């Protein structure tokens, strides 16, 4: 059982809480704390929003010329003619 007394103690586990990677009892304690502590609740919401936009906001594009050079490089070095 993790000891959580101060706001910092709770905030130290918000990332695990967000992942659902925390014990049932600790999860309950954090939930109770967030319900009654607006500053920590705001920190939690901003953390959740950060994780949410990380998953949506970083582009995965690859320039066409990089794609073509990779294809040619692999054909040359892996024996495809």
């Amino acid at each position, binding site marked *: 059982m993790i000891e959580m007394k101060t706001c910092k103690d709770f905030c130290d586990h918000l990332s*695990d809480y967000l992942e659902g*990677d925390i014990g049932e009892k600790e999860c309950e304690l954090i939930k109770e704390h967030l319900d009654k502590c607006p*500053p920590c609740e705001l920190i939690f919401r901003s953390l959740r929003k950060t*994780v949410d*936009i*990380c998953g949506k906001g970083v582009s*995965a594009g690859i320039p066409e010329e990089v794609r073509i050079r990779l294809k040619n490089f692999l054909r040359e*070095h892996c024996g495809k003619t």
Partner: protein
Amino acid sequence: MNKTTNDDRSTVQRVLEGDFDAFETLVEKYQARIYRHLRKMVKDDPCAEDLLQETFLNAYRGLKGFSGESSFSTWLFRIATNNALMFLRKRRPESVQYDDEIGDHANPFYMTASPEFVSTPLEILLSEEGRRQLEEAIEGLPVLYRSVLVLKDVEGFSLEEVSQIMDTSIPAVKSRLHRARNAVRESLVEYYLDRDMSG
């Protein structure tokens, strides 16, 4: 086992039987994600391209060693990560310190969040300007934190997969992820607070 993992394994099998087109299918499927990961790690586009080519060449030559214990994507990202870390250790050894900390976040005190960031609509957060701020916040992290955050929150790997890719323990991954997320959060909170006050 999910469908992608099964599909990749049968494609790998075809490559091992000499089907080069099957390898190109794997390259086509993963090149953009591997390139994004490498760009985030080394922060240099020409170097990221060299490492991209090296990663797929290493993967092709080492495919017989792919045991199938992990998914193909985990295996491939591990090769890319190792290549990038080797490159950084050679070129900028100071950037790959295992005890490197994120500024004051060695013992984070958690800057109180202001409501501006939380209330900013998604279309602004994901606008060109919003994406640039996010990328800058991520790129400001030390490489080992940046890599964990990108693998977990951008690429969507599980904590266990990130620990396999980074060749580190799950507690170490969780600790770096927590600090990295908090540093990015604080950077975005500050940016949207200033933006709100100035405009």
